[in-house]
C-alpha cells in the first residue's frame, strides 16, 4: 500500500518508530552527514542534503571495527552477543540499500554465513529515500540500479513536495506504515512522474555492454600502468564504497579480543604473504584488482556488477580519479588478446 508522511510529521513519526526500533537517519556529522542513531533532534536530519552520506551506511551492518571474539588466558573463547534488537534505517538512498543486497551474497552465502552480518540484517527495516535529483557523480542507472531502485527496501519513499510518499514493499514495511494516512490517486501519479523523470534524466556514464570481456581480455594490458599513475594508494575509494567488504582479522592482546577491521586491496600489506612475496606488488595490480573485482569478478560470481554507482569514490578521491572515466577507457581496449 501507499502512504503519506508530511514533512511536518517527520519528527513525530520518527519518535513513534523509536519506541519499537533503534532508528538511524542521515544526520549532521562534522561538515557532512552520516547515518547516526536518531535522538529526537529533527534539526540534525539531512534528508535534503544533495549528496550521499560521506561515511557509507554499510558500517551499520559491517562496522569498521568489530569484535569477533574475546578469550581468556586458558584459551576459552566467547563470542559477542548478536545484535538482534529491532533497527530501522530511515532515508538511505537506493544505491546504498542495493549495496546491502549485493553484500548479502557474500555474508549470507550458501556455504558460510556471517552471523554478525545476518543478525543485523534480519533485525533491520530499511526505508529507502529515492533521489529526485541525483548528483553529477551518480551513475546508478549505468550499473543495473536506479535512483528509485527497490532492491532491499521495505519502504520506498519519494519526495513529492510538502510531503513524502511511502510505498510499503514488504510486510515489515506495511507494519511500519500502519498509522500513516493512505496516499491519494493524485499523489500516486505525482510519484511516478518524479521517479520517471529522475531516472530518465541520468546520463549513461559508460557502456557496460562488453565491458567485462574487455577487462578480462586486457588483464596484462599496459592500460593498468597508465590508469594508476596518479593514484596515491590510499583507502578512500574502498573505505567509502558501499560494496567493498574486505576485512582484516587482528588480535589485540591488551584487550584479550580478536577484531575484524575494514581492509582494502589498495594497501600493499593486504595481499603480502609472510614470506614477503606479494601477488599484487604495485599500485598497478591493486588498481586492477579494485576495478576487476567490481566489474568482472562479481559478475562471474553472482551475475551482477559489484558497484551501485553511488559516486563516493569519484567525489572523494584526493587526486580526482574517476572510475567512470577509467571504465570508459577500459571499454575501448581491444579484445583480440584473449587469455588461453
Amino acid at each position, binding site marked *: 500500500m501507499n502512504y503519506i508522511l508530511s514533512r511536518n510529521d517527520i519528527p513525530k513519526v520518527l519518535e513513534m518508530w523509536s519506541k519499537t526500533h533503534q532508528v538511524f537517519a542521515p544526520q549532521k556529522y562534522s561538515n557532512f552527514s552520516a547515518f547516526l542513531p536518531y535522538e529526537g533532534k529533527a534539526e540534525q536530519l539531512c534528508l535534503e542534503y544533495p549528496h550521499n552520506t560521506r561515511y557509507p551506511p554499510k558500517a551499520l551492518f559491517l562496522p569498521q571495527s568489530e569484535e*569477533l571474539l574475546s578469550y581468556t588466558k586458558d584459551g576459552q573463547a566467547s563470542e559477542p552477543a548478536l545484535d538482534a534488537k529491532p533497527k530501522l534505517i530511515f532515508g538511505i538512498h537506493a544505491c546504498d540499500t542495493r549495496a546491502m543486497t549485493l553484500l548479502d551474497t557474500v555474508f549470507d552465502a550458501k556455504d558460510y554465513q556471517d552471523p554478525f552480518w545476518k543478525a543485523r540484517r534480519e533485525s533491520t527495516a530499511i526505508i529507502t529515500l529515492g533521489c529526485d535529483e541525483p548528483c553529477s557523480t551518480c551513475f546508478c542507472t549505468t550499473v543495473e540500479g536506479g535512483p528509485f531502485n527497490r532492491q532491499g527496501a521495505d519502504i520506498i519513499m519519494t519526495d513529492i513536495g510538502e510531503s513524502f510518499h511511502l510505498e510499503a514493499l514488504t510486510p515489515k514495511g506495511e507494519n511500519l506504515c500502519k498509522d500513516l494516512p493512505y496516499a491519494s490517486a493524485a499523489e500516486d501519479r505525482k510519484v511516478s512522474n518524479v521517479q520517471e523523470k529522475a531516472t530518465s534524466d541520468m546520463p549513461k556514464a559508460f557502456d557496460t555492454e562488453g565491458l567485462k570481456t574487455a577487462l578480462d581480455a586486457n588483464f596484462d594490458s599496459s592500460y593498468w600502468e597508465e590508469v594508476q599513475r596518479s593514484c596515491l594508494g590510499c583507502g578512500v575509494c574502498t573505505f567509502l564504497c558501499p560494496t567493498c567488504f574486505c576485512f582484516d*582479522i587482528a588480535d589485540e592482546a591488551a584487550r584479550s579480543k580478536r577484531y575484524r577491521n575494514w581492509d582494502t586491496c589498495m594497501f600493499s600489506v593486504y595481499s603480502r*604473504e*609472510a614470506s614477503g612475496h606479494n601477488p599484487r606488488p604495485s599500485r598497478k595490480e591493486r588498481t586492477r584488482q579494485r576495478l*576487476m573485482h567490481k566489474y568482472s569478478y562479481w559478475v562471474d560470481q553472482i551475475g551482477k556488477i559489484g558497484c551501485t554507482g553511488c559516486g563516493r569514490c569519484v567525489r572523494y578521491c584526493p587526486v580526482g580519479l574517476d572510475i567512470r572515466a577509467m571504465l570508459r577507457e577500459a571499454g575501448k581496449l581491444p579484445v583480440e588478446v584473449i587469455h588461453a
Partner: protein
Amino acid sequence: MPNQQVSPYTPIPMHLLRSYPESVDGALRSIELSFDNPADCRTFYEAYDPGQFCQISIFGKGESAIGVASAAWEGDFVRFTVQRMGVVTTALHQMQVGDALGIRGPLGNGFPLNEWKGKDLIFIGGGSAFSTLYATVLHITGSSLKKEFGRISVIYGTRSSGHALYKESLKRWHENHEIDLFQTIDNPEPNWPYMVGFVPDAVRAVKPSPNNAVAIVCGPPIMTKFTLPILEDLGFKPEAVYTSLEKRMKCGIGKCGRCNIGPKYVCKDGPVFSLAELHTLPNEL
C-alpha cells in the same frame, strides 16, 4: 564457559599434544593437537578431505593457514607441519605440551579423491608443501581406500636428506614398497642410496606414464614452475595435473576478500586447483 558456537570465526579449542622438529635446520616443526572436546575430533575428520587446511589460532597472536598433515586413522589428533615465518608460526614453534590453541577448519576444497578413483596417482612434492601430499598418501594407504586407486607414486625432493619431512614414514615406504617412493636431494651426500638432483629432473627420470593417471604437484613456486612443462612433455593433460596454492588468508571462508585469483577464492574454491582451471584464471600468483 564457552559461549554458543555460532560464528565461523570462533576456533575449536585444542591443546598441544606433541611438537617435534622435522627438518635438520629446525625451520620446520610438526605439531600435533588434540581436541579439548573429544566429540569435536569425530566432527572434524568426518568433514575432512585430504588437501584441506585449517586456520591455527593462538589467542593474542593471530591465525595462520596451514595444511592438515595427518589422517583420521592415526588417532584423535590433527598434525600440522609448520614453517617458521611470521608471528604466529614462530609462536607455534615455541609452544609447550598442554598449551591451549585453536583451529578453524577443515577449510578449502581438498583433493577430488572421488574423481581420481581407479587412476594411478603421482604425488610430486618439495619443501613444506609436501605436508598435504603426505596426509593424502596416509589417508589412502591407511584405509580400505587403497584398492580403489591404481599405483601410488611419490616423488619427493628436499635440499638435503636432513631437510626431508616425515623421515620414519619415508623409511617405512622405502622398505615395504607400499607405495613407489622416489626420493631426491639437491646435492650428493655420502651413502645416500636414492636420487640426487632437483625435483623436475627426478620427474623426467622417473618418467611416470600419463595413461589413466593424475599428477599432484605441491612445492615451492620454482619447483612447480619447472615441473609442469615436464609433465606436459610426458603427456599429462592440464585436467590431470593438480596443485595446491598458497595466498595470504584471514577468514578462510570467502568473506575477507584478499586471497582471490580472479573470481576464485583460494581459501574456499581452492586451495586445490587443476592446471586446466588455473589456465582460465588471471595470472596473479
